């Protein structure tokens, strides 16, 4: 799941998906248009070969990024930049929002996002409303060939789907796969 972050001194704390899209397309350029300070918005995003970049573009912007957006080389680079820049806005995977001990990282505020003006504004860290948070995408694993039963790959897959594996996934900041995904996976694994 992707979160949208701003500097900790930024008063703006929630936005609709539409607003976020407009900001990243360059249609909204100043924080005061959103109830914040009179400061030009500095956009941080990923580089064009990044999956995050493409996903954010297709689901949130539904258009092209503003040419002024600064491409950073990774999630952490965006966090560092937003920390240092009061006018910044960036998007990062939620795994990067908490440190190893589970505390939220300092220096940034995480925006609550709503589907539209009348929906609820949800924070990506809200574990109960996880499935209603709008900016999320599934990650797939690909293999070159069908793994044989009891091969290292097969055992690794079983580990991933076990309770212990799922726990690690959750601790790394990713959301569980849905029940539909679970049944799809079981079908695929049965074919091995």
């Amino acid at each position, binding site marked *: 799941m992707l979160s949208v972050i701003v500097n900790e001194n930024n008063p703006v704390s929630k936005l609709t998906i539409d607003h976020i899209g407009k900001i990243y397309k360059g249609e909204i350029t100043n924080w005061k248009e959103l109830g914040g300070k009179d400061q030009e918005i500095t956009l941080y995003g990923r580089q064009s070969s990044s999956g995050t*970049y493409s996903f954010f573009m297709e689901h949130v912007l539904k258009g092209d990024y503003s040419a*002024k957006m600064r*491409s950073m080389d990774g999630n952490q680079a965006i966090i*560092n930049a937003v920390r*240092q820049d009061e006018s910044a806005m960036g998007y990062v995977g939620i795994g990067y929002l908490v440190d190893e001990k589970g505390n939220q990282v300092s220096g940034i505020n995480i925006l609550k996002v709503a589907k539209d003006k009348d929906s609820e504004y949800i924070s990506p860290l809200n574990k109960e409303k996880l499935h209603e948070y709008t900016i999320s995408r599934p990650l797939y694993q690909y293999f070159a060939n069908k793994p044989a039963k009891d091969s290292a790959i097969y055992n690794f897959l079983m580990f991933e789907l076990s309770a212990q594996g799922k726990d690690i996934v959750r601790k790394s900041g990713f959301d569980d796969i849905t029940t539909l995904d679970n049944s799809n996976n079981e079908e695929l694994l049965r074919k091995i």
Partner: protein
Amino acid sequence: MQNPRKFREKIIERSFSSVSAISLLILISIFIFLFITGIKAFTQISLSDFFLGNVWNPTAYGEPTWGILSLIVGTLMIAIGSLIIAIPLGLASAIYLSEIARPEIREIVKPAIEMIAGVPSVVLGLIGIVFLSPLIANIFGLSNGLNALTSSIIVAIMILPTIISISEDVLTSLPKDFREASLALGATKWQMIKMTLLPAGLSGIVAAIMLGLGRAVGETMAVLMVAGNSIAMPASFFDPIRPMTANIAIEINEVVKGSLHYEALFAIGLVLFVMTFAVNLISDIIIERQVRKYKW
């Protein structure tokens, strides 16, 4: 017997010359591989779109655009910005080391400056991110310091040793007669430097500057970390820039091999190769003229 010895000598010489040819082979291979991959990009991108288009957007929402103009401008801004800083600083240091400093001081300062050349660019980039860019942001009241100015300063630091070292070599290798003749005519030391040495060593100094220019154009890691990397055409040195080197570095890792994006990145690499080749060629010609003028 003469013949086995001569034969052996010939073999040895041939072996050495073949080994030397490897350098040539490497250079040609680099060009070939850049060319065969990069040229494929132009089957789908027109030359004018590539060189004159100013939006680089390979994964656009609609049609991808492949204009590298803003990338070229980014590279040029760093080249110019870093030279503006490094030339006065470098030349002044070279003059000091060659003409003014006492030998003991020279023995310490010269190696010290050459040690800057030993600092890896990624370390300078790191210092740029954590120290220099917040500083620049503070001084100029910007929201952040990732821009052409910070990049120029970092690159200037990197090319300083090159400019100082070569200029100093040029000056010290000028014949003593030049100095003695000038001073004998009543010139002060500075007048001697300004009116005799600098004009005489001009070509060598220009060559040193061109080598620094080549390095500035080719610098990758340090600028990648502090340039801001936005594709918009910069309006001033306080704007973020995306030089060609940083663009390749930032996108090459996750690009699909063999795709048009991949080929376009190689095309940019080809442009970089040609640029640095041209700079080197010009500085070669200049050096040759300097050597011919003052055969010593």
